């Protein structure tokens, strides 16, 4: 017996619409070979990694303290693929510190794949991917210690962070030459902006991979994402105007 949950019918229609829009937008972008718009300053990432190679210093990467279910973590992992590839190409040691056990496994796999793809499997060192702790302050203490001991040239922290973000960022400020951060957590963004040379703000974190890799598939996926956003923005605007005029059509539709 099939029965729709009351109050969720409108949401289901909206989800189907967004999914279709994402799929169509992706295909269109792939066919027309669209380019991604540059994110200010992100090109510096390549030169910072090359600089780390020249100084013979490592690169530190933190994918945040949330699990694999967090979209920020997924976006951070997508960027880790790019960073790992560049580090392997430039023979730079990449140290990854994790706070989640599932993320630990994924990051190990990403770094191993980067070495395998570059034909340098023998240089892969499993000790470079470290699980520190599931407790945020123990993780922060671990990261502070790692940054002080390893003295990396570049400190990258992307993903979901909470109170420990400033500790990671400030410790990095005193140990690393460059800092690159990104999160969608509004509470932590001011700390990132105050301590980083380059910060990815909220939505930029999800789009950065497309621009960096310049891969048509990645760009098409970001276009699909943007089409979904346009639909949501149009709904917000229409809802605001209609409610202001005393019409509750959109409200009723979403409450179906």
């Amino acid at each position: 017996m099939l029965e729709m949950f009351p109050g969720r019918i409108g949401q289901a229609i909206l989800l189907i619409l967004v999914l279709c829009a994402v799929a169509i937008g992706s295909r269109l972008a792939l066919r027309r070979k669209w380019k991604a718009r540059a994110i200010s300053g992100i090109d510096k990432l390549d030169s910072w990694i090359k600089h780390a190679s020249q100084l013979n210093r490592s690169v530190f990467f933190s994918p945040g303290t949330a699990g694999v279910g967090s979209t920020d973590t997924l976006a951070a992992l997508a960027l880790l693929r790019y960073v790992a590839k560049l580090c392997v190409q430039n023979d730079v040691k990449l140290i990854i510190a994790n706070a989640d056990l599932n993320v630990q496994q994924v990051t190990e796999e990403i770094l191993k794949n980067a070495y395998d793809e570059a034909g340098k499997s023998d240089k892969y060192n499993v000790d470079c991917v470290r699980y520190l702790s599931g407790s945020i302050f123990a993780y922060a203490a671990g990261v502070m210690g790692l940054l002080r001991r390893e003295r990396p040239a570049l400190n990258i922290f992307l993903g979901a962070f909470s109170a420990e973000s400033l500790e990671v960022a400030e410790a990095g400020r005193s140990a690393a030459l460059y800092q690159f951060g990104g999160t969608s957590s509004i509470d932590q963004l001011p700390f990132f902006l105050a301590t980083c040379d380059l910060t990815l703000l909220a939505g930029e974190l999800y789009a950065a991979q497309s621009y960096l890799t310049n891969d048509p598939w990645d760009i098409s996926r970001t276009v699909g994402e943007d089409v979904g956003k346009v639909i949501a923005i149009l709904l917000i605007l229409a809802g605001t105007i209609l409610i202001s005029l005393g019409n509750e059509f959109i409200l009723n539709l979403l409450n179906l």
Partner: protein
Amino acid sequence: MTAKQKMTPYELLLQIVIFATGFFYAFTYYVKVSTPVDLQAIADNSLAYLTAMIITAFAIGIINLTRIHYRNIKLKRPDWKFSIALLGSLYGMAIFSMISSPFQLDPQAMVIPVWLINFIQPIWSFMYYNVMISINTSIFSLLAFFIASAAFRAFKVRTLESTILLVAGLLVIIGEAPIADLIWPGFSAIQNWIMLVPNTAGQRGILIGAALSIIAFSARRMIRYS
């Protein structure tokens, strides 16, 4: 995966599993199916497997920590003595917790002797309440100093934007201070306006942008694995 690459059979299977799982949970959220099978019950029960998988993954973390710190000690790398402290605390607390803690394995003292439970109990309490919680609180309190140093760096008159930030920051700090109203009652009103109008507007802009990105990002992940 790039444009030129095609999915391997393994990746295709993985993509099908991801889409099917995502679709199943989305379907059970929107549609109630009670007969012939209760899909909601299946969805709830299958989450128990997720918990089991997460607990299994816990062992990987312990193995990783042990491997790295054992090698530190074996090769006498710099600061190797800290690795001894880490491994000692890790396994010591695990053993103590199993013997005598709110999560002890044998609360009825069927196998573990009572004298051992009574002996370990104060040690566990001391290690947990007097050591671990104190260390956690200390690390948390470091934030105050880090905020001061970050603020010192951020509040510098370099550009027009940083000057606006400095002035707004100072007004908010003064407005929050208990003495503000004694100096001039307007400070509290200005502080309130900054927090409620420009600050809230900026935060909502970022929040809506991030929320929309998350919806579209999740939809994209469900349609195509990457």
